[in-house]
């Protein structure tokens, strides 16, 4: 360290510093270098007291921190130590601290420490004034950048979002018995994706939540959801569309599954904990349908549904967790219109079905619905309200007030409602639908009609029993016919639940410019076509009729008018006349007002519309009355599902309905007459490859019957993969066999067998499980089944059994392919 001598007053000690490495410091960015990278250049100089003030200069090189230190060592007698330290405090200041061990030294601040704040925008000066009698004062400045560093660290900022959900599902759903692997329940992805809800000013968190929610097809593929059937792609899209929206008008054409889409969307919201309760408002005639659909698509909520009774106000206020779904009809709700205006309770989700019911804004129905408070509001309708602007305004006053105004142009209205409206027509979703959609529609008898039915059945059974051994099948049929007539219409008042339901549909069909066929076995005024026709005429729907009472020469004209006249929307036919040979493809909605029960006859009826030349999908709706003879017959037929039901064995009446005499008698729990042994039947030739899965199941069912089992064929979706339940009494108890049928070409593998084994293990009443296939089994499957209570029946064994019990005769196709008998 050397001294600079000869310094004059105002000596400047210049301190410089620099980095050892070469770099180009970008002053626009913050950077630091380690102190070790610097060469510390220090100067020491000696001054005498006359040469004060002494200053040092530092030049900022863009560092975050600068440390200046100055040290003075007195040379000569005594010692002076003076140090100055500068620390950059912030972006614009440096603090210089000067320490001194000199007593009696007057520093600038008359303190032992001197603190100076130095702006860093330019060259920095720090000065230390010393006033001392010392003759030799050494002052050393050293400048050093502090340890903090000019570093090349990266410092990104993190942003976090939490989505706390409390997924909810009744515990029973987690039973292993309900579970199937995902491969069984895969729902196809939807392309294109449904349009996102209008987010507008939604927060980033809300947008992220929507993006991070699993795709709808993945949610619906969750095996814990246990959907009985996979939704069609357009339905998947509709479910997602509803799920994302607080306000929504689902206006799919009738028959495309609006109810189902709404139920599943509501179920998903409930499952996520986003809603706790749903209020459904619908026409009274549709309440049973909603209950049926809820049982099908949301079975876990079955015991948590409440239908409004007389205490409507209590019902509407009901908000316990025990009731998840509340259903009230429009008429009942309308009675509380005034009361609702004064109430403040709110529902999580309100669904109004047949939303066109509130299109008239002045009516009490509309006023009552609009008075309801709800966080989410969905409206369902099959009527193309988009064509009627004012009707839409009233509906949107319920959905989201302020979206529409009366008097707006149609274009304005369409644009305003576009984010909240989803309507698909049958033709748009044509590729996704099967050619024919059939539904059994449950109808509930009420009031006088129910009383009349109960009375007639009770009295009828009494009369049959009174006949004792003399009772014949004819007597039974007479009672069945009488009861079926009452199911159509109450004899005195003409009250009809079926007609009420039919009219709901016909209204939408007319509005949608579609056409419908309505079949009935009865033509007479009291119970059949004539009465239906009169009712439809009163509604200005101008129905046409086609039955035995229409002169032969006029029938062609009727058909032509129905086909060509746009105003003719409904054609009423009986099975006998309307069931054969007619081309009625102008209609794509077919109603079986009452059943013929013979599938072939009903199929012929449906084929009037479902035939070559039909441009639209055909919707078939088959009415049956709940808790009546109609339901009992339907259940029996579904259980049996005969393979060759169109073949009527000799000795059976034509109206056998596909049921045996014993089964017909059992409809009323009557004692049967001694049976006449039937002629042995000849095995029917079957080409195995031509059977569809249902026919294969029926074949297997018949096989078990022939072996003495009482057989139940599982209807609809398969219960845990089981297709047939076969029971028979054996020594020591009852043998109960769960049968799974696999009509496939490839060998059945282990996973299928494991699933069957799972069912056997979890149900103590099942003796064993049988897996019947028209192919074979893999080695792994055979190994797995070894030693377990499962039977593997492959093609060879099946052929042997079929031959042994004379069920059928497998033959090859004429091309020579197929299975040999």
């Amino acid at each position, binding site marked *: 360290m050397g001294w600079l001598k000869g310094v004059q007053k105002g000596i400047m000690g210049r301190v410089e510093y620099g980095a050892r490495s070469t770099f180009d410091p970008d002053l626009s960015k913050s950077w630091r270098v380690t102190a070790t990278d610097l060469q510390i250049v220090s100067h020491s100089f000696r001054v005498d007291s006359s040469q004060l003030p002494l200053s040092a200069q530092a030049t900022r090189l863009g560092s975050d921190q600068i440390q200046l230190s100055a040290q003075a060592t007195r040379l000569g007698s005594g010692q002076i130590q003076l140090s100055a330290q500068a620390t950059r405090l912030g972006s614009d200041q440096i603090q210089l601290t000067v320490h001194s061990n000199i007593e009696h030294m007057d520093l600038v601040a008359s303190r032992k420490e001197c603190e100076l704040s130095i702006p860093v925008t330019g060259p920095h000066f720090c000065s230390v004034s010393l006033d001392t009698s010392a003759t030799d004062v050494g002052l050393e400045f050293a400048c050093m950048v502090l340890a903090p560093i000019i570093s090349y660290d990266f410092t*990104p*900022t993190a942003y976090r979002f939490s*989505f*706390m959900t409390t997924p909810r599902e009744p515990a029973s759903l987690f039973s*292993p018995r309900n579970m199937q692997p995902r491969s069984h329940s895969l729902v196809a992805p939807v392309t294109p994706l449904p349009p996102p809800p209008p987010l507008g000013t939604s927060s980033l968190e809300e947008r992220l*939540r929507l993006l991070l929610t*699993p795709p709808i097809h993945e949610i619906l593929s969750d095996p814990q959801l246990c959907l009985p059937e996979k939704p069609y792609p357009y339905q998947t899209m509709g479910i997602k569309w509803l799920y994302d929206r607080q306000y929504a008008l689902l206006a799919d054409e009738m028959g495309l599954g609006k109810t189902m889409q709404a139920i599943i969307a509501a179920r998903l919201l409930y499952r996520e904990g986003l809603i706790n309760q749903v209020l459904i408002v619908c026409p009274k005639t549709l309440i049973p349908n909603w209950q049926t659909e809820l049982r099908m698509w949301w079975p876990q909520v079955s015991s948590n549904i409440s239908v409004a009774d007389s205490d409507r106000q209590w019902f509407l206020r009901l908000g316990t967790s025990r009731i998840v779904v509340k259903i009230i009809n429009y008429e009942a709700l309308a009675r509380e219109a005034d009361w609702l205006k004064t109430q403040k309770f709110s529902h999580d989700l309100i669904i109004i079905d047949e939303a066109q019911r509130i299109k008239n804004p002045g009516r009490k129905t509309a006023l009552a619905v609009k008075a309801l408070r709800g966080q989410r509001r969905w409206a369902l309708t099959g009527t193309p309200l988009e064509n009627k602007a004012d009707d839409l305004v009233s509906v949107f006053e319920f959905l989201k007030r302020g979206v529409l105004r009366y008097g707006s142009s149609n274009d304005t209205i369409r644009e305003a409602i576009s984010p909240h409206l989803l309507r698909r027509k049958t033709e748009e979703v044509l590729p996704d639908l099967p050619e024919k959609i059939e539904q059994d529609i449950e109808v509930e008898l009420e009031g006088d009609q129910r009383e009349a039915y109960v009375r007639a059945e009770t009295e009828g059974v009494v009369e049959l029993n009174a006949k004792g051994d003399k009772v014949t099948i004819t007597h039974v049929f007479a009672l069945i016919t009488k009861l079926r007539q009452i199911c159509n219409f109450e004899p005195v008042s003409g009250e009809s639940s079926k007609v009420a339901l039919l009219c709901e549909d016909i209204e939408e069909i007319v509005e949608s410019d579609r056409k419908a066929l309505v079949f009935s076995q009865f033509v007479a005024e009291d119970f059949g076509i004539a009465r239906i026709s009169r009712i439809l005429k009163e509604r200005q729907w101008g129905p046409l009729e086609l039955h035995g009472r229409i002169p032969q020469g006029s029938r062609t004209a009727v058909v032509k008018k129905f086909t060509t006249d746009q105003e003719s929307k409904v054609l009423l036919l009986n099975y006998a006349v309307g069931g054969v040979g007619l081309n009625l493809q102008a209609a794509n909605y077919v109603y079986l007002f009452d059943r013929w029960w013979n599938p072939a006859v009903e199929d012929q009826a449906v084929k009037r519309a479902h035939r070559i030349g039909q441009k639209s999908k055909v919707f078939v709706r088959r009415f049956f009355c709940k808790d009546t003879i109609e339901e009992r017959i339907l259940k029996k037929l579904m259980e049996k599902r005969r393979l060759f039901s169109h073949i009527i064995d000799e000795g059976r009446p034509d109206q056998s309905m596909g049921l045996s005499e014993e089964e017909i008698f059992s409809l009323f729990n009557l004692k049967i007459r001694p049976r006449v042994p039937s002629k042995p039947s000849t095995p029917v030739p079957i080409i195995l490859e031509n059977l569809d899965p249902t026919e294969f199941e029926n074949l297997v069912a018949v096989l078990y019957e022939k072996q003495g089992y009482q057989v139940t064929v599982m209807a609809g979706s398969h219960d845990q993969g089981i297709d047939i339940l076969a029971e028979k009494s054996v020594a020591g108890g009852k043998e109960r066999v769960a049968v799974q049928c696999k009509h496939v070409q490839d060998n059945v593998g282990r*996973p299928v067998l494991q699933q069957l084994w799972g069912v056997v293990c979890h149900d103590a009443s099942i003796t064993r499980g049988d897996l019947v296939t028209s192919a074979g089994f893999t080695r792994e499957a055979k190994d797995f089944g070894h030693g377990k209570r499962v039977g593997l029946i492959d093609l060879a064994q099946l052929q042997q059994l079929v031959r042994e019990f004379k069920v059928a005769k497998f033959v090859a196709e004429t091309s020579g392919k197929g299975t040999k008998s």
Partner: protein
Amino acid sequence: MSPRNGSTDGSPSSEMPSGVILGYLSCPQDAANGFLGAMLITDFRARPLHFAFVSPVRPTAMQRLLYGATLAEHVKVDVIAKKLMQGLPFRPSVVFVDSCDMVSARRVVGLPTAFLTKNEQPQGAAAHLSTLRYDTLGHTEDQESIGVVVSELEPWIDLIEPFSRLMDALKEAQKTSSKS
């Protein structure tokens, strides 16, 4: 390629394992934005529980020089992954990454980490058993735990699908950040 552990017969458990929490970590890179990063935490049904992303990291020329070939790993692992792991409200059972180089995030993640991808090559008779491949890149101690989670959840959910949601959310977040 790590062998699969867990169930050897391919049959799914009769119950869906609950309580498993999954982590999905991705650090994509592009010329415009530099390095991005996001993490998605889900429950056993792949429902989102937590999402975090970082502001873009755009290295300067000096940084590229100083870090050289180690730049990408340093940024992705020591900077972004470490940042994302801080303050997680849920501790994942496993962390899946969508690129091989991200498996090295194991050292900052502190949890079993694996590169998850679809199994493009059927494995003969066992092809029907799994459609996924997972790679722990030498962290053999993680193979079992990863294997158990994959084999138990694979029959019930699509384990790879959350990555696409993560990327969509990251894009949306970046869009919002750049506007502000």
